[in-house]
């Protein structure tokens, strides 16, 4: 089993930070919806508060790590410009997609949307993490604020889902690969 350095970074970005973000997000949304509804009179213990605070903080950290690795590590490899006269474009994913009308939409719609909508995610999840850390169970006393926290977290999760979908489809059609190879383990002979 061999993976290239660029492939490994893509894996860390998407399957590591991205997928973990979506997992943490589903837990946080359920908890926010169930436990912090304005009419709910059941007591919220310190442990419940800590769990949600941990989930939201983890989401914010994962979102920032995902966009920073995506923008500053992987995106430059994706948009690299080949030397003039290059025919083999597999090492230049953006140019490979744009070279064929049947695949160019993956860049002009997919990547163009992904690169911007993905940046909505860290901003829109840092707010719920910060507000919850400050207000905690007091959030029940501010229904509009609780709804805003829930709404931002939902849109953030949806935007991350969109970015993840386009990332997976782009990597399927024009993988970001190259660099030195890392041998993970030997296969059976």
């Amino acid at each position, binding site marked *: 089993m061999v993976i290239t350095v660029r492939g490994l970074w893509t894996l860390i970005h998407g399957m590591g930070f991205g997928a973990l973000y979506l997992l943490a997000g589903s837990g946080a949304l359920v908890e926010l919806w169930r436990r912090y509804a304005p009419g709910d009179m059941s007591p919220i213990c310190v442990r419940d508060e*800590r769990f949600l605070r941990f989930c939201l903080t983890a989401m914010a950290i994962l979102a920032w790590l995902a966009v920073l690795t995506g*923008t500053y590590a992987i995106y430059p490899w994706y948009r690299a410009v080949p030397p003039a006269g290059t025919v083999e474009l597999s090492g230049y994913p953006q140019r490979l997609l744009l070279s064929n009308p049947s695949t160019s939409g993956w860049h002009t719609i997919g990547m163009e949307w992904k690169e911007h909508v993905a940046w*909505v995610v860290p*901003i829109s999840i840092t707010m719920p993490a910060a507000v919850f850390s400050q207000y905690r169970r007091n959030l029940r006393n501010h229904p509009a*604020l609780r709804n805003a926290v829930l709404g931002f977290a939902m849109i953030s999760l949806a935007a991350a889902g969109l970015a993840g979908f386009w990332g997976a489809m782009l990597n399927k059609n024009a993988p970001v690969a190259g660099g030195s190879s890392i041998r993970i383990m030997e296969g059976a002979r």
Partner: protein
Amino acid sequence: MTRDRDVADTAMPNGPGAAAVLSAGIGCFALAVLACIADKCLAAKTLMNLYKPTGPLSGVTTTAILIWLVCWGVLGYRWRRREVALARTCWIGFGLLLLSVLLSFPPVADLL
């Protein structure tokens, strides 16, 4: 543990929360607007090219983050002990967030 109880038992003003919501909406909207401008205006595209390997995306995102943090800092400071019209502020913030997602969709951005 004591701090957990203190926070939970204190009646807190809604100003700091409203500032966080509104500034997050403004930050996301700024991101989408800057992306549109950098896409359509060559001068803006060049100006936003802070880190060449990443291109204009580096400037668009860095500027939007700065706008978001400055807004948050200013509003948070001004509203730190105030009660504000929370529902209206939250709707404005949420509306800006929705608009930013819509504007980031290339076919919509191309209409502008």
